[in-house]
């Protein structure tokens, strides 16, 4: 099912939680809402589910406007950050809940519900836990129960709010792969909230980056990483090295490298150049760059360079040409991206 958001706005007091959010999620897509805490991603997810209401704008699911449709009639599966399992019910009763509250006419027979629940638990690879209570199982298992419970109602859309937030790193990793496979196998449309860019990059078809209640950029992970629209996205999507530069007549010149100029459409004046550590080319000197240190003994070496008083960290494979600490060298920053200086507090 496709999901469409049109011009959603919501204010908490004076602060904007959602600021003109428009976004279309395609049928079968796995979309990540990525952003720092307070960027509005959870509010957006809850608005979709009908647990919160926008001041203006529209949520449209599969062509139907959701205005005035309560959460229980939206047919949306929601997985809460802390699972929100019913503590007084067994795992099986938790999963059966969505079926047992159906109106009598649409409710499957008790035996049908039981076998359906068992199928779901088997699918989640926790088929033997049906008789346990939520307190008696691990965090990763609770996550699977929450997912099974949400899927029991055959939702049109699955929403996940930081689903792996409370799990340790190892469990997280295995669940990521598993959840993505589940999504593909069941033909779901999923939207999931995270503040972990690695998680978003690994799982999502597309990532929507939020900041201050606005969507800054929506793109496939590779595009987002390679062509961030602004310095915030650049820095959020991965390690970034920052150098001061100035723009004159459409050309950016980085401080300390007067001979190199990069074409840019930034306005005249001070600007910043951002580059990923592995994108810096290091060339034999002598040159304007001083090598402070060379670290690491794995396949990747981490170089700390000084350029006109600015620290520059560089990652190089061990078999590349490597300078030694103390000597000078040249760098090629052709892959740097030039952005205007951020106005404070946006």
């Amino acid at each position, binding site marked *: 099912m496709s999901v469409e958001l049109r011009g959603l706005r919501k204010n908490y007091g004076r602060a904007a939680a959602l600021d003109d959010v428009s976004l279309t999620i395609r049928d079968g897509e796995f979309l990540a809402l990525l952003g720092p805490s307070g960027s509005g991603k959870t509010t957006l997810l809850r608005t979709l589910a009908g647990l919160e209401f926008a001041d203006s704008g529209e949520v449209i699911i599969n062509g139907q406007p959701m205005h005035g449709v309560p959460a229980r009639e939206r047919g949306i599966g929601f997985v809460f950050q802390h699972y929100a399992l019913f503590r007084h019910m067994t795992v099986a009763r938790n999963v059966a809940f969505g079926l*047992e509250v159906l109106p009598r006419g649409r409710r499957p027979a008790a035996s049908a519900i039981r076998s359906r629940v068992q199928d779901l638990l088997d699918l989640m690879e926790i088929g033997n836990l049906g008789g346990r209570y939520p307190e008696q199982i691990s965090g990763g298992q609770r996550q699977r129960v929450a997912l099974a419970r949400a899927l029991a109602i055959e939702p049109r859309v699955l929403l996940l709010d930081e689903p792996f937030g409370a799990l340790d790193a190892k469990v997280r990793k295995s669940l990521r792969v598993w959840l993505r496979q589940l999504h593909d196998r069941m033909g779901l449309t999923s939207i999931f909230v995270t503040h972990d860019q690695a998680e978003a990059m690994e799982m999502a078809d597309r990532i929507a980056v939020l900041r201050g209640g606005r969507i800054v950029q929506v793109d496939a992970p590779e595009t987002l990483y390679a062509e961030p629209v602004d310095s915030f996205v650049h820095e959020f999507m991965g390690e970034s090295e920052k150098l001061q530069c100035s723009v004159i007549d459409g050309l950016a010149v980085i401080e300390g490298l007067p001979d190199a100029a990069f074409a840019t459409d930034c306005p005249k004046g001070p600007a910043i150049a951002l580059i990923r550590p592995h994108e810096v080319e290091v060339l034999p000197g002598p040159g304007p760059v001083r090598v402070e240190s060379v670290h690491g003994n794995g396949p990747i070496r981490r170089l700390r360079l000084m350029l006109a008083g600015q620290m520059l960290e560089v990652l190089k494979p061990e078999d590349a040409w490597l300078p030694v600490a103390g000597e000078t060298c040249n760098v090629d920053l052709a892959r740097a991206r030039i952005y205007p200086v951020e106005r404070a507090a946006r």
Partner: protein
Amino acid sequence: MTRRSALPGFGPALTITLVWVSLIVLLPLTSLAVRPWELGLMGVWHSITEPRVLAALRLSFGAAALAAVVNVPFGLLVAWVMVRYRFPGRRLADSLIDMPLALPTAVAGIALTALFAPKGWIGAWLLPLGIKVAYTPVGIMVALVFVGLPFVVRTLEPVLMDLPLEAEEAAATLGATRAQTLRKVVIPALAPALLAGFAAALARGVGEYGSVIFIAGNMPMLSEIAPLLIVIRLEQLDYAGAAALGLVMLLVSFSILLLLNLLQKRMGVKIR
């Protein structure tokens, strides 16, 4: 017992606890249990099977149970409002709930009597409808509802605060109506606390004296509570008879509370 623990002090703590509980609770109760037998076995039997005594016991436990039954749903509602909503005057309402605890119960009794007497603010309205509250068992229930309410509210409030809103939201996204959410999610999660509140209100009601005797009218066989009968026997210097009645109340109360406690534990096991 002798296992090493990271939290030392078990020995002294247990010793002090046992001594203190013996001194404060067990010793007086023992003296109560010993006292009646100077009447002889048959004497005790006769003393506690008088029709007037049986009626008083029935009234005391019956009215207390009914009042507790009334207090549970209304106490839940009050606790719900206090925990879930913010409204002007909330702090005032919050302290009002504690009033029945702080007030000398006799004061409450006098106030309620004035209100429900045939010429009182409420009593005057009820009289033409043929409802008499003051000087009847209904009055006793009114008094017991009054004194029992804070016990239910204060027992439920912390549990309600702990109840995650997310569970209710989860129920909503799964298609449950508000009524289904209350019935299947909220109330079961509260059940142990509801039972505990019921037990506290019941215990308070059985033992209540001050507020009841003013409004009850204290007619033997009709509106005379067991604690009053104990006082009457004491005034007649029938100490053994008073103790016999006291012992019966003690045993009945203890069995009821024990039962409720076990029930609560069984529910608790499922949840914790």
